[in-house]
């Protein structure tokens, strides 16, 4: 498993304590899991995602990610309605391992309160959290 210094943690996303990330790309808001999360899980074999149109409150479970050794719940960092899901993951769930911030994204949402993103951690806060967990 990677050392914290080896993790790829981009600046343009915010992080949740449960290791999801959230990012504003133009007018869409995408959610995925961090490099730390994918690295801890190991080879991902299945991702269970919600249906388009489902709505979730902040912190609610919106799916699961299954690796060869564990299944973890996915929690939504900011509440909202699901606008689209990454259907590529049905056949190639390993994209979450290979490219967690781009091709391995999970869902796009219409947030209820975009300002809630401010409650999520910056890269530096997240690194501090990870160091605390070590």
């Amino acid at each position, binding site marked *: 498993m990677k050392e914290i210094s080896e993790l790829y943690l981009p600046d343009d996303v915010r992080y949740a304590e449960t290791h999801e990330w959230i990012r504003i790309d133009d007018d869409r808001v995408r959610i995925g899991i961090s490099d730390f999360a994918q690295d801890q899980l190991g080879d991902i074999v*299945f991702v*269970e995602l919600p249906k388009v149109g489902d709505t979730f409150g902040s912190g609610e479970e919106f799916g699961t990610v*299954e*690796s060869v*050794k*564990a*299944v973890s*719940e996915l929690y939504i960092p900011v509440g909202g309605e699901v606008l689209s899901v990454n259907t590529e993951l049905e056949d190639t769930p390993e994209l979450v391992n290979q490219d967690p911030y781009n091709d391995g994204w999970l869902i796009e949402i219409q947030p209820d309160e975009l300002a809630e993103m401010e409650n999520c951690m910056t890269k530096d806060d997240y690194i501090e959290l990870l160091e605390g967990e070590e």
Partner: protein
Amino acid sequence: MRYLPHTEDDIATMLTSSKADSLDDLFMTIPGDCRRTGDLELPEPLTEWELIDRIDSLSRDVASSREYTTFLGAGSYEHFIPQSVSHLLSRSEFVTSYTPYQPEISQGTLQAIYEYQTLTARLLGMEVANASLYDGASALAEALLMALRVTKGTRVALSRLIHPLYRQVVATYLQPTGYEIVELPYGTDGTTDLSSLDTMDDLAAVAIQSPNFFGSIEDLKTAADKTRDRGALFITAFTEPLAFGLLKNPGALGADIACGEGQSLGIPRCFGGPALGMLACKSKYVRTMPGRLVGKTEDVEGKRGFVLTLATREQHIRREKATSNICTNNSLCALAAAMYMASLGATGMRELAQINHDRSEYLKGELVTAGQDVAFSGPTFNEFVVRFTPDFSSRYDELIEQKIIAGLPIERWYPELPHHYLLCCTETTGKKDIDRFVQEVTP
């Protein structure tokens, strides 16, 4: 894996390495008042031949003895078990098998379970079968919970013609969950009345048993279509899987989940157990399936191997989010069923099913000729309901004295059907037995 008892030497070695002087010393941590002092109150030991005599005399008093002619089915069926099954099953590697976690040392058992899954999936016409559950009743309850997980519905509809004891088990399973159970009534032809389905919302599943508790064959195709219209999963239950040797299987008729009891497949009737819970479903639901699953794979050298698979559904990994708290299977019974199905083959299953059906039809025809009243008009497989006259209950007791069990009185579960008896014939019910029975019950 073999079961090898410890020898005196083994015990001495283990005591030495655990630094205990004796077995009593080893168990010192158990408080004295929790330990038995003195001998168990047991009768004197018997010689082997005395013991056989004793068991023989006990078994003569119960109707499982060959001296009895029984027309009892109702979820537990008397079938001939080929010697090949008994012989293979007695191998110690199978008898002592526990659910095999380690593929390195359990290839035989894992492959045997895999074969069971394959044969079960084929018999039921489904895409994937699990490694087995405890019995038909818990398999149905697990199937309903599975449908609730898949659909996120809040209620399930159960035919009143599902085995009454299965429905009790389902009620026990669902009672603490808050999900609602709706009962579907039955019509005059002895099959489930589906008309109330059209207005039911938030349905997770519709469960129908076929052949149902009255022995009648249900119109599963129509039920499957109606269920799909409600956005629910269609669950077919069964107590007599041999019927699928003759009838269209659940998969062909639109079942999303097929579940039931596998006792008929090479497992003797032992006062209600052990049993075999069979459960199969469409592949797309495999991740929400309960129970163990064995898969086929390749090792690093490209050789075929068998392993437990999709274990992340299970509670040792998923804890409270597991699909079920059943974390084992009924291996020995599953293996008996696999050996039984393999011994008969598809042709054998069909022929045997035909014999069961024909015997039952012969009894039905003879009863009708003798002026008895068959309660429901629909087609049946190897059991059916007869309405005897109100004075029959005393005759029923007399027949037991004559070593004939005249089926099961069903009034206990269906108070609206007094004097109704469920009668069953299998390949073990001879024509002579049937003729004698018809004579005995005809006034």
